């Protein structure tokens, strides 16, 4: 579904991503784990078109999306839950979702999408008229995921959705991710919480200072000695 080959991304003179290649298969949950500053966010932002590719290619379902405009990439079917939630704080919950429905022309599709969002996030329905900035941290994260779901991509990128959440909410958000995956959305999950990520993922990549150090099925990597020492605190 997503194929990244020999990708390089720079911030000025600094190369943040150095020649990485990976792929996400249809229906999978793939995860990209790594320490702070490894380049996880940069990778996701580049897939979505928010950062420029210096060299290499990104293919989504056989379409070359390298350096395409972000709104066109969303239209092709990639949704992105950005790091730090990035909800529109002075807009209501409804307005946040309406914006996410920006590209949907068909009224029926839109109401189906709303039904799906509210079946997964019933609390957002109760908070519909409230300003998004007044939601709790957990609810804001749910809104951020709900927004991405609303855009209706067949691939969803999630950037540290568990960041800053209490353990109960972390479990909740991982449940939500699995639910979304079961309903047919392919997932690329970026996490610092490697333990949780490896639990839900099918396949995993370990990113270390801009390069892929390890990869394998999530089951294998969970048992890998290097992963255990560096990321699972064992």
């Amino acid at each position: 579904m997503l194929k990244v080959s020999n990708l390089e991304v720079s911030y000025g003179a600094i190369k943040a991503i150095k020649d990485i290649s990976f792929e996400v298969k249809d229906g999978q949950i793939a995860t990209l784990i790594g320490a702070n500053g490894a380049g996880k966010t940069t990778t996701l932002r580049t897939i979505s078109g928010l950062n420029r590719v210096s060299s290499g290619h990104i293919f989504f379902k056989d379409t070359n999306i390298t350096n395409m405009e972000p709104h066109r990439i969303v239209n092709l079917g990639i949704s992105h839950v950005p790091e730090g939630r990035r909800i529109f704080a002075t807009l209501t919950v409804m307005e946040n979702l309406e914006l996410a429905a920006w590209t949907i022309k068909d009224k029926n599709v839109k109401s189906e999408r709303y039904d799906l969002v509210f079946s997964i996030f019933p609390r957002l329905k109760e908070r519909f008229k409230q300003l998004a900035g007044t939601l709790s941290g957990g609810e804001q994260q749910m809104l951020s995921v709900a927004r991405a779901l609303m855009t209706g991509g067949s691939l969803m990128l999630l950037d540290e959705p568990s960041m800053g959440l209490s353990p109960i909410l972390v479990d909740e958000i991982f449940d939500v991710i699995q639910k979304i995956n079961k309903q047919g959305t392919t997932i690329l999950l970026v996490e610092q919480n490697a333990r949780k990520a490896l639990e839900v993922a099918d396949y995993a990549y370990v990113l270390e200072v801009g390069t892929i150090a390890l990869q394998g099925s999530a089951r294998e990597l969970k048992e890998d000695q290097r992963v255990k020492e560096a990321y699972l605190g064992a």
Partner: protein
Amino acid sequence: MGEIFNLQQLINGIQLGSIYALISLGYTMVYGIVRLINFAHGDFYMVGAYAAYFIVNFALARHVNIPVVFVFAASMGASALIAMAANRIAYRPLRYKPRLSALITALGVSMFLEYFFSALPFIGPSFRSFPELITQRIFTIGNIKISNYAIVDVAVSAVLMIFLTYLVRRTKVGMAMRAVSQDKDAARLMGINIESIITITFLIGGAFAGAAGILAGITYPRIYPYMGILPGIKAFTAAVLGGIGNIPGAMLGSYIMGISETFATAYNSLLGEGIAFAILIIVLLFRPQGLLGEVTAEKV
């Protein structure tokens, strides 16, 4: 003092403030969306005045009766086109470059429009008298005189401001404008083409400046290529006073600016010209975020 602080001056001040408000809104909207102080904005207002000037004279020369509404539409359209062209040609290529580049470019666009219009043989640098588009009538109520021009200025401005408030608060495009002004990347991830939202912002800001230009032409019927400089600065000051980026703030700031200028001018005409700068300095010293603005940490 009774002669200076009277109802007549207040009415004149609101009238002037209505014109400033239409200019000020363009400054504040563009700043809100792209964080650019568009110094050429006062010149869009000048373009609106000239567009009306040529259309009305063209019609007069041919003895055609031209509907006032049509003249307004043409002026607003001309200014909107210039504003969108400035955005497309000058500002958009610098969107992700250091902010100072765009600021200096805005000064360049401003000077270009002023000198280019002065250099055009059919415009020239000198004053021209604006044709009488609407016949003036004066209504006297007690010892207060109200001209129909004042009514037109206040009413046109109010109608456009109500339209804008509706657009921003209640429509999908308005929602997108608010989203883009808050977080461009997040807006992009919603599938919004932010360049089209920016274009719409320049369109509306330009059209409003064009309306202000034609109102100014009707009310103070002398136009020239540099006519946008001072009202531009005053409207910018009004936007800063209200809180730059804040739409109701620009409206409030403009009325305050128009009223203080009128009262100050009644006292001493030099004071009237200087009051805008005095207000700007006082605001920047004591309330840099403006009356309705919020303190925000500038994002890097």
